[in-house]
């Protein structure tokens, strides 16, 4: 891939896709590098851990998978990654109207690329025709996929040269803490995050790292209830109820 793919094409739709995708990819670079380092330190065989790029292609779930391999059971690992990926159901629901008039191959292939960044880009392009939207989606999606895999692999090369005294094994946890904060958009979200962390801490002695799932379920329940309370409060305040 050229350093500036936007200049390698004269097609306006393709260059538009690159122009919008590149700035969204840049913030993902440190994440990809951290994942690369985590893959080299994973309790999984390195090749298997690397294959998550091709098989899973979802940063947070990949990082959880390769990091948890050291301590979690098979079931806890898979269940945690599954819960992390539940947010994709929302993306899938939001984009499904744009897929109804697409060819069958694209309805099967398209969802594979549906990462947060691609959702952010493609969900706001209602003005594009079905055909143009498909090309825009695939161009940006394949760009993210290729860049992600290359950057993670680069992180593996860099990571193996860094001394253990740098404690890069802590980087995934710090990364997840930062991701939580950046994902908070409202007060119920804060309630969900604090409950999830607090309950997981109290449940650290639950066998097989089950505390993650106990914490996650408690956090979702708390966030849901806080959201209900907040919208009821708002409805009362505006007299809309």
């Amino acid at each position, binding site marked *: 891939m050229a350093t500036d793919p936007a200049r390698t094409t004269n097609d306006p739709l393709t260059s538009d896709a690159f122009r919008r995708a590149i700035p969204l990819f840049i913030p993902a670079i440190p994440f990809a590098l951290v994942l690369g380092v985590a893959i080299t330190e994973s309790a999984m065989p390195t090749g298997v851990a690397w294959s998550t790029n091709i098989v899973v292609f979802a940063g947070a779930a990949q990082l959880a998978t390769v990091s948890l391999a050291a301590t979690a059971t098979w079931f806890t690992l898979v269940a945690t990654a599954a819960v992390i990926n539940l947010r994709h159901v929302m993306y899938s629901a939001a984009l*499904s109207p744009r897929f109804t008039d697409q060819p069958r191959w694209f309805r099967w292939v398209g969802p594979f690329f549906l990462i947060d960044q691609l959702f952010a880009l493609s969900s706001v392009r209602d003005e594009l025709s079905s055909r143009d939207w498909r090309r825009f989606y695939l161009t940006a999606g394949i760009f993210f996929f290729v860049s992600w895999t290359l950057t993670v692999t680069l992180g593996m090369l860099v990571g193996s040269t860094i001394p253990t005294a740098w404690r890069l094994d802590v980087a995934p946890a710090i*990364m997840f803490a930062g991701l939580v904060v950046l994902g908070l958009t409202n007060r119920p*979200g804060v309630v969900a995050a604090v409950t999830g962390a607090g309950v997981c801490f109290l449940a650290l002695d639950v066998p097989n790292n089950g505390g993650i799932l106990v914490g996650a379920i408690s956090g979702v329940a708390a966030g849901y209830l806080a959201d209900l309370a907040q919208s009821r409060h708002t409805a009362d305040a505006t007299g809309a109820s």
Partner: protein
Amino acid sequence: MSTAAALSAVLAVGLITYGSRAGLIVFLADRPLPVSVTRALRYVGPAVLSALTVNLIAGGKGASGVEGAEVAAIAVCIVVAWATRNLIAALGAGMVTLWVVLALL
């Protein structure tokens, strides 16, 4: 973790990930999710990622696996992420805090 266990775990995670992305597009096109489901799904991200952070810090050793330096690094990361909305700055500040506290202890 054995190669077979690791490989089957990765395949299972891959299938589940694809299913969560493709389910409503391939199999249930045009059937919107109930409002209560979308409301709950909104909080899956913060809840599971914060629980995962705590779990990784403990490293499978219970509360005794939590190091002071790690807590300091996470705390600084949270503050910087909140103030700057910048993941690179938050990660950098967290790692620097970790190194400083480890050097001091």
